[in-house]
């Protein structure tokens, strides 16, 4: 493996990891703050990708499609939280699993009814469609670098939001003691709705920006969801920092796994998870409970 090839795999791994982070951070926030296990999280990744495809073929621009789609997914997230998810806060995890599993079936079939069952490609925006040459015959697409850059910006923004703003303070307080926050006069229900919508929008956004690379196809959310579960288990529930580090580890492990041991690539991430479970069952950055 020469240097250029290694560099390409490294960048691919980091880009994939950062993309996983967008999905997994929402998942871990919803777990950590609201105590909800959301199996339908992968469905929003899929919905984002399909919205990007259908809106970009209508408007002719992926950027325009993303700008229209983000508010749609935020509204969808808020609506779902109000309508269904809020009934689950005091219920056993079992019912959260069941209800969100039902939602997966609903979203998957609605996708089939509205958009059909075909695979679709999405064009890379013209501005980002060229590649940077590395050697005579190897080059790296700018679009992948742009995705990594956007994901890093969002990660920084998320850190700022949670650690440095007043809203973030309320979110952190709500995670540790819901009743206390409520009795201090903070509208915890509104905060929950916002956190849920934020998580959904992040997952959907990941689907949108990745659509040109992955293309758009049925059941695309399932695989992402399960990998993100592994990320959350490794990183520790509720820890955004853990999710970031675990996402990068998983992204690199899977990318290099596919190059070095193609037959075992699917299992590498689960093997990593098993190792972490033996070593630290509460995850790398999870608090002991």
């Amino acid at each position, binding site marked *: 493996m020469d240097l250029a090839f290694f560099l390409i795999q490294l960048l691919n791994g980091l880009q994939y990891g950062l993309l996983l982070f967008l999905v997994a951070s929402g998942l871990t926030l919803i777990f950590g703050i609201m105590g909800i296990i959301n199996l339908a999280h992968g469905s929003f990744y899929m919905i984002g990708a399909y919205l990007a495809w259908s809106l970009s073929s209508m408007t002719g621009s992926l950027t325009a499609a993303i700008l229209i789609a983000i508010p749609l997914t935020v509204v969808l997230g808020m609506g779902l939280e109000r309508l269904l998810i809020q009934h689950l806060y005091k219920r056993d995890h079992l019912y959260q699993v069941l209800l969100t599993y039902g939602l997966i079936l609903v979203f998957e079939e609605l996708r089939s009814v509205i958009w059909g069952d075909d695979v679709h490609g999405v064009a890379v925006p013209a501005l980002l469609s060229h590649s940077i040459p590395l050697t005579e015959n190897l080059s790296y697409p700018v679009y992948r670098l742009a995705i990594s850059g956007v994901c890093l910006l969002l990660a920084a923004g998320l850190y700022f939001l949670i650690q440095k703003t007043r809203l973030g303070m309320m979110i952190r307080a709500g995670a540790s003691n819901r009743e206390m926050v409520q009795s201090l006069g903070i509208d915890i229900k509104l905060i929950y709705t916002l956190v849920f919508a934020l998580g959904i929008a992040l997952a959907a956004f990941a689907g949108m920006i990745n659509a040109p690379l992955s293309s758009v196809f049925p059941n695309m959310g399932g695989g992402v969801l399960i990998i993100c579960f592994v990320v959350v288990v490794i990183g520790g529930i509720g820890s955004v920092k853990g999710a970031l580090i675990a996402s990068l580890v998983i992204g690199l492990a899977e990318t290099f796994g596919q190059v070095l041991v193609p037959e075992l690539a699917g299992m590498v991430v689960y093997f990593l998870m098993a190792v972490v479970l*033996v070593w630290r069952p509460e995850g790398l950055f999870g608090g002991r409970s």
Partner: protein
Amino acid sequence: MRSFRFVDYLPFLLFAALALFPLVESTFYTQLLTKILIMAIFAMSLDLLIGYTGLVSFGHAAYFGLAGYALALMGPKYEAVSLWWSLPAAMGICAAFALVTGILILRTRGIYFIMVTLAFAQMLYFVFHDTKLGGGSDGIYIYEKPLMKLGDAVLIDLENLNHFFWLVLVLILLVYLFLRRILQSPFGKALVGIKVNEHRMRALGFPVFRYQLASFTLSGALAGMAGYLAAVQYGFVNPEILSWHQSGAVMMMVILGGMGTLYGPVIGAFAFVLLREFLSNDAWTGIFAKHWQLAMGVFIVLVALYLPRGLAGVLQRFGKKPLEEADDE
């Protein structure tokens, strides 16, 4: 002494009625009923975890599918394998796998537990999907169905639909009686105690981890029995038998029927499979049949919201009064 309770004998009456079923009904319905009973065994095995031990496993398809693959890979390719040893062997493999994964999985609790069970099932899915071990994503055929012979006489031939049905019926009765016995024993009482309050049981000196691991292993072996039977019925196995939709469906059966009762999962298996057959049959639902999952998804959401104790809970609510009066006498 307790007075006579009709409900206690109901399972046996039902069993007797079902045994006559293949003699009066067509092969289509016999096969459908066989499928339902197999899923009922699978659901009972999961109920032991969810309903009695308080462990919400979302990866139960792993043990179900592993037994199917065990059957397909164990026997000679063009010769019928003996039921005598292949069923116990398949269950043994599942028990061993449940024991090993259980040691890791039981280090976690709550949400972690749900995700880790799913992840391990998914790992197994990729083992069979990505490697040549079990024919990759195409799966493998089971050309010859298992036989049970005594000397040269064939006692049970699973190629015969009625034989197969009766075998499944006997097995489900045995599983039911076995689990009922287990749950009435001190071991079963301890499991329920752990479900209700793990810390208290630990403080009382119970080795909680070992009890949970025993339950997890037993549940894996019983799921293996169901998976073995399902593989025999379909005549082939592919990675879909391990998919997480299989785990979702069986969890749905347990909750729909009513967890923490042994007959609940059986009711749930009947209700779920029949509903799925109904929704996906275009003679009944017309153009909606193609999108049956939409109606199923909405139904699952409604059950989660409004029917937490399942159909068994509804039955108990209606049946409660007279039974309580009978107990008071």
